[in-house]
């Protein structure tokens, strides 16, 4: 029988920290007896700090460190050195955070940490690494996002439409033309300006030796002291009226995303209430949500339908969210997975119908009870790995809230259905939306969205009368889209130029 991992949970979060500037690196520790050690190094900088004419620079700088060589070692030498340890450093970045994460068996901690430290503190800035990684970034945009993943493309475009003209409107990966104009010197400049102690959060978890944290802190104190990035951003523009963007692309089905900014983030008074509403309406990748039940289970419209109050990239590949994607501004979003074209307009209307019902009628007491019970236990699954637990602890420090699980559980205990429904009415709405579709017949879809004819669903089986009655209402659900509110965008222009 295999040997199972021993892992004691001795949780100790040091440095309960508020958002303002820091004199020295923040250190978050979750020591334990596990033979596995996780290191998360987070810099609170990202695409929101990209220079206006260089979108994608924060991301490119991150991968230059995480997927390039150091002063002393080429990238090949790093890969060779890590191979026997079965370790690597992953890097990902978003608007306000750039994260380097790695895990190692404690046997190899010294070797692994030495490599990871040098990658972050002593980057090699080699031209050949730069060429390769810039190519990767361009292809991540042009091929992986634009060509091969309609759902993620729609979601990313939604953010870029909602935050148009603002720092958050810049796609994390940038634009193709901006990436092509970048130089290795740009990434070096970004690094020196933003990889500072004031922006640094060091996270350690697992069975590392007692003196390890002090060593890491000492090593990273070689970074410049400051300044810290500021994320005091302009408010997103008010959305007046509904707007739709249809990305025209050769594709089988129609992918939808729609939403609007909300003035609620982790730590705000209404966050737990909205989290419960999100779960009730569309818990990510589970079948419990109202949208999933009404669109997929009842009507067979697609593979799934979900709701979000926080940024959740790569949701098609993940069942639980990645930590360290913290943001000062969030949107409410509904994700409708690809729908057969004849039912596409109906699916959008059905989601709007459910959202409208939620806002007008609120969550019933029974639905509230069940969702609260669900969340108070499910919250434990979000931190089932040490790496996730460490990531959440870092986010909690950033948002200046207590341990996330405790924060949510105690808030849920005190929540009433009236609280949730008040928060829903205050923050959610079924109009003044930005809507994004990825579709082949953009003109046909646009005509359906702006026309007066109903867009009925096409079934392959009989349905109960109450469903058919509801369908009659859904198929005529007002979209309030005028011709001038619908924009058709050829896919090859999306994220191409600034």
């Amino acid at each position, binding site marked *: *029988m*295999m040997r*199972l*991992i021993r*892992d*004691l949970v001795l949780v100790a979060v040091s440095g309960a920290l508020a958002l303002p500037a820091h004199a020295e690196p923040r250190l978050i520790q979750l020591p334990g007896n596990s*033979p*596995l050690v996780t290191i998360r190094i987070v810099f609170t900088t990202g695409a929101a700090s990209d220079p206006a004419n260089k979108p994608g620079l924060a991301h490119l700088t991150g991968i230059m460190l995480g997927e390039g060589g150091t002063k002393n070692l080429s*990238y*090949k030498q790093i*890969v*060779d050195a890590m*191979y*026997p*340890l*079965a*370790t690597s450093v992953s890097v990902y970045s978003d608007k306000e955070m750039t994260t380097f994460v790695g*895990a190692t*068996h404690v046997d190899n901690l010294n070797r692994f940490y030495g490599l990871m430290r040098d990658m972050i503190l002593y980057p090699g800035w080699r031209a*050949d690494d730069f*060429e*390769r990684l810039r*190519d*990767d970034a361009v*292809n991540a945009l*042009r*091929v992986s996002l*634009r*060509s*091969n*993943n309609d759902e993620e493309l729609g979601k990313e475009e939604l953010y870029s439409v909602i935050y148009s003209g603002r720092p958050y409107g810049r796609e994390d990966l940038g634009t193709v033309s901006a990436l092509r104009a970048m130089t290795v010197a740009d990434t070096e400049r970004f690094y020196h300006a933003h990889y500072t102690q004031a922006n640094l959060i060091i996270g350690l978890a697992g069975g590392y030796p007692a003196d390890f944290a002090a060593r890491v802190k000492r090593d990273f104190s070689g970074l410049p002291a400051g300044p810290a990035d500021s994320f005091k951003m302009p408010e997103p523009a008010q959305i007046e009226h509904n707007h739709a963007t249809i990305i025209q692309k*050769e*594709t*089988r*089905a129609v*992918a939808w995303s729609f939403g609007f900014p909300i003035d609620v983030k982790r730590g705000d008074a209404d966050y737990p209430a909205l989290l419960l509403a999100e779960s009730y309406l569309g818990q990510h*990748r*589970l*079948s*419990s949500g109202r949208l999933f039940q009404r669109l*997929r*289970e009842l*009507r*067979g419209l*697609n*593979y799934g339908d979900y709701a979000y109050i926080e940024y959740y990239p790569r949701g098609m590949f993940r069942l639980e969210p990645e930590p360290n994607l913290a943001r000062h501004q969030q949107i409410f979003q509904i994700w409708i997975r*690809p729908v057969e074209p004849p039912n596409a307009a109906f699916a959008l209307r059905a989601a709007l119908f459910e959202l409208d019902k939620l806002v007008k009628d609120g969550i019933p007491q029974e639905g509230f009870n*069940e*969702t609260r*019970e*669900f969340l*108070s*236990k*499910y919250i*434990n699954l979000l931190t*089932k790995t*040490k790496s996730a637990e460490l990531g959440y602890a870092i986010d909690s420090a950033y948002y200046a809230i207590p341990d996330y699980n405790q924060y949510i559980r105690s808030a849920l205990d005190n929540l009433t259905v009236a609280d949730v429904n008040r928060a829903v009415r205050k923050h959610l709405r079924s109009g003044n939306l930005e809507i994004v579709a990825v579709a082949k017949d953009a003109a046909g879809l646009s005509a359906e969205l702006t026309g007066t004819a109903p867009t009925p669903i096409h079934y*392959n*089986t009989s349905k109960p009368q109450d469903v058919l009655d509801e369908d009659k209402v859904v198929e005529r659900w007002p979209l309030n889209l005028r011709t001038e509110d619908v924009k058709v965008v050829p*896919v090859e222009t999306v994220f191409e130029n600034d």
Partner: protein
Amino acid sequence: MPTDYPNIVALYIVVSTGSRNEVEPGKSGFAHLFEHLMFRGTPDFSPERYQSELSKAGAASNAFTTDDFTAYHTTFSKEDLPRILSMEADRFQHLAYDQSAFKTETLAVLGEYNKNSASPTSKLFEIIRATAFKKHTYQHTTMGFVEDIEAMPNEYDYSRQFFDRYYRPEYTTIIVAGDVDPKKIRSLVDERWGSWKKGSFKPEIPTEPPQDGPRRAHVDWSSPTLPWVAVSYRGPAYDDNSEETAALDAISRLGFDDNSPLYQKLVIEQQKVDTLRADPPNHLDPELFTVLARVKNEEDLAAIEQQIISTAEGFATKPVDRAALDALKAHLRYEFALSLNDSESVARTVADYVALRRNPATIDRYYDAYSKLTREDIQRAAQKYLMERSRTVVTLSAKGAAK
């Protein structure tokens, strides 16, 4: 399997039926359709009640289908284990859905095909399978042929037959990992599942005749993409009594991992390729050793294909580097340990192997074979499997690009 990760329990129920079992023409995709139908309720637990019980347990529940098995997995707090084990026992023994629910679920499956269809690799794998296999059911992916998916709504009766054949104790393994007491679990399982009746069905899976020469195919992709090339060889079935499974796994890594000479040359130095990876065969029946590359420029496609072929087939003529094999063995040990980072991963790992042998001891035998693997073993496996006669090459590029 008790672990020291507190409070959480991961339950995996593995049914040893996958798309491999879809032997009748026109019925591909049924194992996967069944994965969906299992959420359609029983006389005692309507889908709504089942869902509500899961919600009260704060459970994350899902399922997936492979060529060889279907797995139903639920992760939740330990106090809910008896309730969830009972519910699972109920649906595995008393699943009941009507025509209408069946037809609606077939649409969700079509929706899944649709959401996958934006990715060129889904299509690439469809064509690799269809080209390399002519008789064996591995000729289709787990999703099934699209024409069979579109015809599913009319196959209600067949779906009941499928359930009757395969949703039986002799096909099923229950895996529980987490903060649990094995004795209590054993008695709970006996109590809730003990009366489940064995079936008698044994599928006749067609044997694929030996491949008699190289094959190739090309996919015209209708939207812009970088071109792909896949080089596949017919390999052996998973076998923990021989070194062949481990030897081909070693070739997939020594030949194509990030630190391999070919990866370093094509991805890091020349930068002509941005994705390179190899998947060795690890199936119940003989399947494929496949190398996959995404190429940056169409004009390099043929040359990259040649380099992949000479690297793979080169293992037959030249023994591997001793130090590289030692580094790989160290890598494997730590990779395995690092992968068991929560109870769910432990259960998932065991599920993958149990599907192959219905006994977790196969993990030990497999890793034992790996630790004893020699350079000669690797060379012999390459000579036997990685040869022109059993090779299939599939390329994919945007329509209108040069082939």
